[in-house]
């Protein structure tokens, strides 16, 4: 066993397969109240008994194991989580309570709609709110995540072009885009071409015009973009795409900057996805579930996934007769529990509160920018909105890189920002504090960042060797990928293989 490293009472936690012993159980059932059936209907070769290798633990073991594991995690409820482009805002507790209300949590997706009027009403009310917030015509709530929504959006763009004669060949994507954008376009069968970023950190309009031919199906943009900068020439961009018959897709990852302030629908956007787990406060859950509703203009409405929830003389109904629909993308209605939470959030804030979201998010980000840009120069001087992208330019000569800064932040008790993204900024440090951080928390973060910049001069090894206080040190990811161990195997089996 290696030397203890953890602070306080944290200890090294074995896997669930390494605790427990034969015969321990963590579950009980009522006695069987029906006659035992004869298993003989199920062929012998298909049946199996208890599965060797499954955990054998009591409820106590299970609870302690997972509580101990939880303590190895950082979380929004512990402090600032400034991952740029991820919008790690506070997750209101009432949302969790409402999503677990029995009538909602124990309704089945295949119930007769007449017996699920309450659930359908939640979906409808959320759609209405999202339409109002974005200015889009209609929404589907089926996509389970942002990338899922992107795929839906691009499939609809394609369906529109097919209906108008031919699908066209290419989707344009700015070089600052999230990796999901080109991957989603490829899933819809499109070639992807990049549009360069100009000196202001925006889409180069002249370059866009040059690339914008009748073969381009559409442009996927993020606005504000991944540099946190609003595409000032949005009107010209949309016009350039529309003039050639293309459509504009907006990745709504950064919608937190616009809520209550500006509406994509008013800018001529044809289709966008939202991330309820970013803008609308549903928890990230350690990597999902998310929810990625997609909103469309009138042009694309016929292609929305079926079914759609609609109101008809006071009752909620399912509209499945959608001949031009791209089809279904989820087993059922998408991540309904997230819809409940997002609607609760919108109701909690009301119109006043929603506007305050963008105002405070942008103020917080600009405050960090103002306090750090002397030591971590901004990539672009253009004003930014809800996030700020700094760089490691001044630290490089001391042999300290962005990754080292990120790891050293762990020692100061903060989750690091997003790093090395967007790819167009060398050594990018992408900071998005969100509106739910108090000034004191931002000040503590700023102090930590400034201290690290100082340490880079006085003791660069301290920074390069970070983190020094976490349960494990930097893990050898290259070796992990070279010799993948992707499931638990007892030591004796390992020796054998």
């Amino acid at each position: 066993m290696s030397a203890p490293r953890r602070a306080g009472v944290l200890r090294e936690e074995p896997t669930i397969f390494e605790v427990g012993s034969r015969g321990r159980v963590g579950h009980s059932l009522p006695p069987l109240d029906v006659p035992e059936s004869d298993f003989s209907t199920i062929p012998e070769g298909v049946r199996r008994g208890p599965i060797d290798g499954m955990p054998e633990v009591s409820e106590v073991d299970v609870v302690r194991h997972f509580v101990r594991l939880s303590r190895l995690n950082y979380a929004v409820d512990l402090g600032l989580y400034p991952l740029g482009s991820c919008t790690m805002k506070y997750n209101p507790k009432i949302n969790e309570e409402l999503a677990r209300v029995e009538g909602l949590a124990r309704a089945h997706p295949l119930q007769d709609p007449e017996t699920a009027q309450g659930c359908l009403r939640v979906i409808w009310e959320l759609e209405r709110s999202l339409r109002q917030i974005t200015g889009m015509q209609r929404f589907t709530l089926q996509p389970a995540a942002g990338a899922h929504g992107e795929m839906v959006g691009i499939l609809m763009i394609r369906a529109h072009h097919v209906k108008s004669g031919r699908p066209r060949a290419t989707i344009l994507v700015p070089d600052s885009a999230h990796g999901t954008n080109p991957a989603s376009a490829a899933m819809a069968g499109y070639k992807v071409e990049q549009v360069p970023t100009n000196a202001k950190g925006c889409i180069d309009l002249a370059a866009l015009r040059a690339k914008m031919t009748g073969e381009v199906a559409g442009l996927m943009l993020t606005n504000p973009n991944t540099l946190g900068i609003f595409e000032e020439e949005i009107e010209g961009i949309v016009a350039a795409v529309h003039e050639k018959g293309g459509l504009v897709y907006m990745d709504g990852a950064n919608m937190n900057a616009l809520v209550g302030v500006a509406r994509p629908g008013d800018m001529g956007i044809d289709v966008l996805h939202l991330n309820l787990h970013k803008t609308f406060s549903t928890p990230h859950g350690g990597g999902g579930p998310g929810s990625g509703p997609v909103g469309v203009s009138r042009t694309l409405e016929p292609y929305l996934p079926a079914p759609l929830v609609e109101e008809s003389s006071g009752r909620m109904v399912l509209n499945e007769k959608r001949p031009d629909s791209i089809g279904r993308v989820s087993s059922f209605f998408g991540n309904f529990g997230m819809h409940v939470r997002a609607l609760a959030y919108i109701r909690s804030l009301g119109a006043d509160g929603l506007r305050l979201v963008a105002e405070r998010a942008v103020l917080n980000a600009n405050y960090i920018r103002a306090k750090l840009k002397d030591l971590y120069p901004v990539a672009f001087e253009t004003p930014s909105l809800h996030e700020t992208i700094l760089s490691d330019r001044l630290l490089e000569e001391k042999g300290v890189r962005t990754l080292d800064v990120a790891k050293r932040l762990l020692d100061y008790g903060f989750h690091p920002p997003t790093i090395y993204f967007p790819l167009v900024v060398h050594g990018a440090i992408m900071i998005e504090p969100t509106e739910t951080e108090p000034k004191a928390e931002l000040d503590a973060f700023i102090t930590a960042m400034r201290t690290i910049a100082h340490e880079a001069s006085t003791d660069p090894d301290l920074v390069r060797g970070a983190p020094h206080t976490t349960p494990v040190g930097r893990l050898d990811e290259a070796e992990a990928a070279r010799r993948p161990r992707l499931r638990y195997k007892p030591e004796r089996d390992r020796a054998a293989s």
Partner: protein
Amino acid sequence: MRFFPQGDADVRAMLDAVGARAASDLFTSIPEKFRCKGLLDIPAAASEIELRREFGGWARRNAGAGTHAFFLGGGAYNHDIPAAVPQLLNRSEFYTSYTPYQPEISQGTLQAIFEYQSLVCLLTELDVSNASLYDGASALAEAVMVAHRVSRRPRVIVSSAVHPHYLMAVRTYTQNLDVQIDVVPFGADGRTDPAALAAALEKGAAAVVVQSPNFLGCIEDVAAASAAAKAREALTICVVTEPVSLGLLRGPGALGADVVVGEGQSFGVPLSFGGPYLGFIAARESLTRQLPGRIVGEARDAEGRRGFVLTLATREQHIRRERATSNICTNQGLLALAATIHLSLLGREGLHALAVQNHHKAAYAASRLAAVKGCRLPFSAPFFNEFVVEVQGDPGEVNRSLLKRGIVGGLALGRLYGGKERRLDRAILIAVTEMNTREEIDRLAEAVEGSL
């Protein structure tokens, strides 16, 4: 405004620091014409008291498993959720954290996913699993794309006894790829027709997709289907929408399936009107680098401590962009955790006992309904906890009549097949789990009898 922690003096000081007079000054980069002039047309802020009233009112307008004897399945099941599951999920450290990009402060999430992957491998009897996918339907679509990529063949053979929604999702995902879906019918016994499958395979295929237990509740002959597929060098993808069955039935991997996908909702995830659920995918080791989505692997730090990291990232979109194996970014992390906790509690003995009890109860229900005048069990193939009953009457009418007696009946299958499968016009799919008592089952049989 209870979610905004800045005081007036703080806001003033921060505005001064950024050189702005008011918050609106921060938005001048947005062209004037696109800035909202007034407030959105959204109701005023609501207190928690008002929210509970409003949402509680909606909740009461649903019939559900909390208030009714419940026999609806078809890809989502009413199972017991042990008290420890929601309690542990409610740990802020789990549900308010993000994708574990910084492994040093995410070991809780990473180790739990590693344990999840290990459990999925045990259940399916396959070598590798990813960190989860959105749901069963999208998991199948991803698996079909894996097979298509590996084989470069266009044809994919899908059994018509695969969940119709899953087939729809496959069609949606692959509509612009060089993929051709060939649906083979189920036979008189309720299982995929082996002759039709063999005939379809004559022309070669990337993959054969079967579901077991299938959408009609029947346990398929996965070994025969995969042997037929293998003889034609096609991959076998087996769908499992009711994974509790794997406590009593062999993992499809042991029967020759190359990829197993499915829905993990049965393990610790509430019905929640269809989501969030948990898609799972497992495969043979040779397909590891073709899998979509996140994968967690074991790693060591400089001092030799064991830890866990996201690995094999060169398959993924943030590195490979348009050449990635999938566009998927997040998974269903919290639901994978729910399943891990639930499966840990059940453990070796508990999962088997749960599966056995499900089967006994379903068998009892089947025998009760078979004895009802005007009912018959049309399929002879073995089932796990779900079976089809055919009624002499309109299934919708039967269910409406049951509802009046406090029972949510089974699934009228005609609707799910869009009226295109005439053999199922009078079919109702009944699911029975450990949640159903003998009294409820007896009441169901009596109520069905009374409705005909």
